[in-house]
């Protein structure tokens, strides 16, 4: 394993101090009126205690729900264009679960597919992720079925795993090393601990590679329509999902000035693919649900040879009508072509 250390609770407080002194904002899951959401913290004590996950994903840090791309003012006879500089504060994302940490990779795949998205990249450069392994999971989690794991270090610059009196800290990237360099003495040389024993037990629910290969053959299958019969076509699943990248460009202007905004969009919306002619290739909810599954489990692997889903289960928890993705995938996997 990369260099692993022990980090006591005390020294974690010290680490927070040095990070703050280094001018970095620290975002971590906090308790807010019964809900757990990302918030700015000064010390580990402010971080929520025994939470499963935040409701919304951490993608908001790199890909906010509304972002100004450019603005302009209209003066007599001419237009003054002003590019918007992305507001990228040096940030440390603490306490994020391994699945969400991994998700940044999926975002990165799209935002740097061929066009380098200036806004996303600016924020990612300033971002460091200190992941925290899961010690418990619920029915919605299925990270192990999509190549992840409760203590998987992918995507984390440093991965902490809770152990007696503190954490096992694995420094995985240069950014992780840079953080350790801020206060090296806080990191005691670690005695190899079996992470799997501590991490939560997440049973593999289905054979993902088999599903991915099976999907192209079942495009016309009735299963999608049946599953989507109860889907109400809202955008909750897409907006809480750490790997959903779809966005919509909105122009808000009046005769004197205007600005171009990027905001989240969802393939679940009825009008997502509505053509100006009135034709809609994905007319029914079944087609839209199918698109959500195929995008993450068929097109992503095909194009970026990685999955568009990290199995965090946020969509299942957020869905008003309890569309359980794991359950549906198991059902789909079970369908004979």
């Amino acid at each position: 394993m990369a260099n692993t250390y022990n980090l006591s609770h005390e020294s974690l407080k010290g680490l927070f101090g040095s990070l703050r002194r280094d001018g970095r904002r620290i975002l971590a899951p906090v308790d807010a009126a019964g809900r757990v959401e990302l918030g700015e913290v000064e010390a580990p004590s402010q971080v929520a205690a025994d939470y499963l996950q935040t409701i919304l994903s951490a993608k908001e840090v790199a890909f906010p729900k509304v972002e100004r791309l450019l603005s302009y003012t209209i003066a007599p006879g001419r237009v003054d264009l002003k590019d918007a500089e992305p507001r990228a504060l040096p940030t440390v994302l603490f306490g994020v679960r391994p699945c969400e940490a991994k998700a940044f990779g999926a975002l990165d795949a799209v935002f740097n597919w061929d066009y380098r998205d200036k806004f996303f990249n600016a924020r990612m450069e300033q971002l460091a992720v200190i992941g925290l392994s899961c010690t418990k999971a619920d029915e919605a989690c299925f990270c192990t079925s999509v190549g992840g794991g409760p203590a998987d270090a992918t995507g984390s610059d440093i991965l902490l795993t809770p152990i007696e009196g503190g954490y096992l800290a694995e420094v995985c990237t240069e950014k992780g090393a840079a953080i350790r360099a801020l206060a090296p003495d806080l990191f005691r040389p670690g005695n190899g601990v079996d992470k799997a024993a501590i991490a939560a037990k997440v049973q593999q629910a289905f054979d993902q590679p088999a599903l991915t290969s099976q999907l192209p053959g079942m495009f016309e299958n009735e299963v999608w329509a049946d599953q989507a019969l109860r889907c109400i076509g809202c955008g909750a699943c897409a907006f809480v999902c750490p790997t959903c990248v779809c966005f919509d460009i909105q122009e808000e202007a009046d005769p004197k000035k205007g600005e171009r905004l990027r905001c989240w969009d969802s393939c679940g919306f009825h009008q997502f693919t509505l053509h100006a002619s009135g034709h809609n290739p994905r007319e029914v909810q079944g087609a839209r649900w199918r698109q959500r599954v195929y995008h993450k489990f068929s097109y992503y692997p095909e194009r970026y040879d990685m999955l568009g889903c990290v199995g965090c289960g946020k969509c299942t928890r957020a869905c008003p009508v309890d569309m359980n993705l794991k359950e549906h995938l198991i059902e789909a996997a079970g369908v004979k072509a």
Partner: protein
Amino acid sequence: MSRIGVFTCHCGENIGATVDCVKVAEMCKDIPGVVHSVEYKYMCSDPGQRQMQEAIKEHKLDGVVVAACSPRMHEPTFRRAAGDAGINPYMCEMANLREHCSWVHEKGEATTQKAADLIRVLVEKVKHNEPLHPIKVPVTRTAMVIGGGVGGIQVALDIANGGHKVVLVEKSPSIGGHMSQLSETFPTLDCSQCILTPRMVEAAQHPNITLMTYSEVEKVDGFIGNFKVTVRKKARKLDEHLCTGCGLCIQKCPNKKISDEFNEGLGTRTAIYVPFPQAVPNKPVIDTLNCTYYKTGKCKVCEKMCPTNAIRFDQEDELVTLDIGAIVLATGFKLMKTDAFPEYGYGKHKDIIDGMQFERLASASGPTSGVMKRPSDGRSPETVVFIACSGSRDRAKGVPYCSKICCMYTAKHAMLYKHKVHSGKAYVFYMDIRAAGKDYDEFVRRAIEEDEVKYIRGRVSKIYEEDGKLIVMGADTLMGGEPVVIKADMVVLATAVQSNDRSEELAQTLHVSYDSYGFFAEAHPKLRPVETNTAGIFLAGACQAPRDIPETVAQASGAAAKVVGLFSNEELTREPIVAVVNRQAAPVYSTCVGCFICQGACPYQAIEQEEIMARSGEVIMTLARINPGLCQGCGTCVATCRTKAIDLQGFSNEQLYAELMTL
């Protein structure tokens, strides 16, 4: 991008005085989409309009904003000019720099800036204007005149002589109105009956006129050119066709002691009666409130006597619905009663009468056959006091306005009295003499100089009865406010002219606006005196404001000319400012979801259901559709519709949104 022309008008000084029009024209050049911006002193003038038309052709403009006065004034003018210049008239909008800017602000930079802002709002609107084409609506070439007085009769005759059908509706059993109650008329003193009755007969016999007397308008639906009017023909309790008007029933009717409305309570009439001898139609009516048969079930003398047994005791009111193209209101006025004057004894003195009662005393067909007899004891009054402005010009009585006709008829009354009682003394208490018509002042001078009517300038503070005399306590302000006490035998109050009974109710039935005194509101006091704000409904006579006979007849002909004008073309072109429910190609067909919540919002029932059929004939969806003929363009449905499926042409969501964006 549109090519818009802005034409800023000085409107003489109205705008030019406070707004720097040259600067405004300059500033408007910078508005995106404006390719031509000029100013001119009088845009609405002929040269002004021609200048605009040339600019449209020369600069190939497709939108015009005229920054001048209120659209209510000259929108039609400029739209017609724009139309003649080759662009769709509805691509021309007006910015109101007068009422919205120059008239309400001081001269200054901010005012000029506001003027430019207002223009920019309308330029943004014009960018979203769509070419619209007037709606063609069939016109029912039948007019209805409500009110059978001299005004109503004149309107009916003029329209009928114009070759169109007229229905003349009169509330009382006969046409004639108040004029039939008068004795002589000023300023010529010619007998009222003699000049009115021929007109009444002419109206009754005119092939184009249908008389509906003893009838009231109950309900009016529809709109200009297409009114549906429901009239209640009150039961006369006799068959009009069989009755020959011989009058036998009237002579024989035992119940003779009913107070006669026609004679203003001075005379009495029978239960079955004809209002006055020259009544048209000369068909009696049974007064069911006082007729013995309806009280006790006995009598039936009239039925027995009637040679053509035309009496129908069980006759019911009849509701008649008529297709009407235009309506003229000529419902006249009423006089304030004498009991409205506490200072003159709350009406308890019999010998204090109002002007109309004096007319009846003076009229040959009146209760005293024209002989001056005072109501209390029938003696010939030796001293008569006439009090002008009784109730009029008196805020405490709720009538601050001048009733216009009293000065003239008071002089006439004094003159008539002197002609009938040469030895009598006539006094007139007045505030100001308002005799502004032709030969009017000369008439009053004649009363003063030739008939020695004593005019005392002052008010009467109190009248009380003493030893059979009426003690009139007044003051003579020309003699230093000297108290004047006159022992009079009879006092005539020239009471205020008020709107007729239930005029507000009628106005609401016809959706016509009215003022706080119940008079109907004309569309524009100076420029459209005979029209109302409700298209297709016109006004004539005292129902609009106190008015004498010459003016009433003149207005009547004016209103008739408007109606004949309206009927002169086959179809009526209506402003295309109507609401439309959007339609799109299949499979969407429309964003309307067919909830029909809009139907409740439409006062004109203009929203219909349209079933969209598949080729198989199966109904796919039911959508709302607006009948352009009925829609008046108020836009209530547009704001009520949740999915914004309805839009109002001329005030569309996009136009208003664009205007809002530049506020």
